[in-house]
């Protein structure tokens, strides 16, 4: 017996819509759960004062500094490196076995667990290069960790720029680099920004790669060679060592809100850029 297409259509809508609603519910549950437990602790005092007694009391100010500075330095290093690499791979090289191997390699690197990067950073940056547990070592490790993501998302964005734009640009006497600068990068920007945003999100939430390389000092850093603790690491230590559940959730709530603000700001900036170009 054939099933009436109208019934299968109805079934499809229920399954597809149901999946979406379920996903949204799970997300909403997690966020509400953490905010509900964490927000009562969060106030100006909590955000602006130093932790006391290993974090049992006091605020989380130094970890906010750490959470800002590590990803910022990491992205300042990784973004230009990654974008330049992706431009070179997609615009300046012919498709050969070598480029395929490079692409396969970056895909593999993107899938490696972050703790491996943490161990690498510990052995290479902290020990071999004698950086110690420091902002520098932590940022470099994070940069290495997000580089594959930035390269691959940028490359996809660059490949998605219509081929005719390149042809027209060349036909008007532009050089390869002028075409990249004036046509390809501006048109690929939304995709590149998406990759950078993903990377910021991963860096901010990262614990394994950071705890081995930036350490977990609760002091406010003054140089690039000082150790810092990020909010994610702080949360991990507070919860793991059973120091303070309340402050752990407070930290988590702050982290979630921070990520939300960063994402909203980035999309707002990008939309403004697109609107300005027309």
């Amino acid at each position, binding site marked *: 017996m054939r099933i009436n297409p109208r019934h299968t259509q109805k079934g499809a809508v229920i399954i597809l819509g149901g999946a979406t609603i379920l996903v949204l519910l799970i997300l909403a549950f997690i966020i509400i759960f953490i905010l509900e437990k964490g927000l009562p602790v969060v106030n100006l005092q909590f955000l602006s004062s130093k932790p006391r007694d290993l974090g049992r009391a006091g605020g989380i100010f130094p970890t906010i500094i750490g959470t800002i500075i590590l990803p910022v330095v990491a992205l300042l290093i990784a973004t230009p490196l990654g974008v330049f690499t992706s431009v070179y791979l997609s615009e300046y090289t012919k498709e050969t076995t070598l480029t395929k191997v490079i692409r396969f390699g970056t895909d593999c690197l993107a899938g490696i667990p972050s703790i491996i990067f943490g161990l690498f950073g510990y052995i290479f940056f902290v020990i071999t290069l004698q950086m110690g547990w420091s902002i520098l070592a932590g940022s470099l490790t994070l940069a290495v960790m997000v580089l594959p993501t930035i390269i691959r998302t940028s490359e996809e964005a660059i490949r998605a720029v219509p081929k005719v734009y390149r*042809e*027209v*640009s060349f*036909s*008007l006497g*532009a050089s390869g680099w002028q075409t990249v600068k004036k046509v390809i990068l501006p048109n690929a920007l939304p995709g590149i920004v998406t990759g950078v945003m993903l990377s910021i999100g991963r860096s901010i939430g990262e614990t394994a790669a950071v705890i081995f390389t930036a350490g977990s000092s609760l002091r406010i850093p003054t140089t690039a060679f000082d150790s810092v603790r990020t909010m994610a690491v702080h949360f991990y230590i507070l919860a793991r060592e059973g120091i303070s559940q309340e402050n752990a959730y407070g930290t988590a709530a702050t982290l979630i809100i921070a990520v939300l603000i960063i994402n909203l700001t980035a999309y707002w900036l990008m939309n403004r850029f697109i609107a300005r170009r027309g």
Partner: protein
Amino acid sequence: MANTMAEIKNKMRVEGLDLYYGKFHALTSVSMPVQENKITALIGPSGCGKSTLLRCLNRMNDLIPGTKVTGQVMLDDQDIYGQAMEVTDLRKRVGMVFQRPNPFPLSIYENVVYGLKVAGFRNRKMMDEVAERSLKGAWMWDYVKDKLDQSALELPLDQQQRLCIARLLAIEPEVILMDEPCSALDPIATMKVEELMLELAKNYTIVIVTHNMQQASRVSDYTGYMLLGKMIEFNDTRVIFTKPKEKLTEEYISGKYG
């Protein structure tokens, strides 16, 4: 006498040109003159190599990996495939209008001055003048003069194509290559672009590839008929369309083929 001398001046000359895409032999010893301030049309069925030949004239085929070219293409007295020819300079002298209107996703003004900017010009006043002159040259100044900052993508298709012509005029090319420039336009817009071509031919040398035989007979002075990568016949447009020498040409013109 001076007049006849000027009339037979070759702006470009293709001599024994062979082109391979990898192993595919796309053009076989093609020769053709391109006369100054005239319109030369290339006709033939799909895949005959007419667009490929057109793209040899400003080396756009260089962008396709695996392309190999032998033979000569002379611009004035210089081989454009020779060592001394800088390809960016060549493309400023031999410009191109593409099949589909393809303005950049920028404002109308930024589209027109793109070629100037990549050539290193920064003087705003001079660029304003060139933009106005180019848009007038493409017969669209009155239509766009009040909305130069608007996105070019919001223009109707035929105005977009004219903008592409204006963008090209801004870099003052000597030769304009047109690759089926009207195939995305309706008949009225096509007629306008054809009129524009006749006007442009007073100052520029034009080579046009077209699917449309009527278009070739309406606008061109010379016509080349191509088939399977070979130039079957090249002559005065009148001769090609009234008494072609080759049987293959006649079959195509009369609609028995293609």
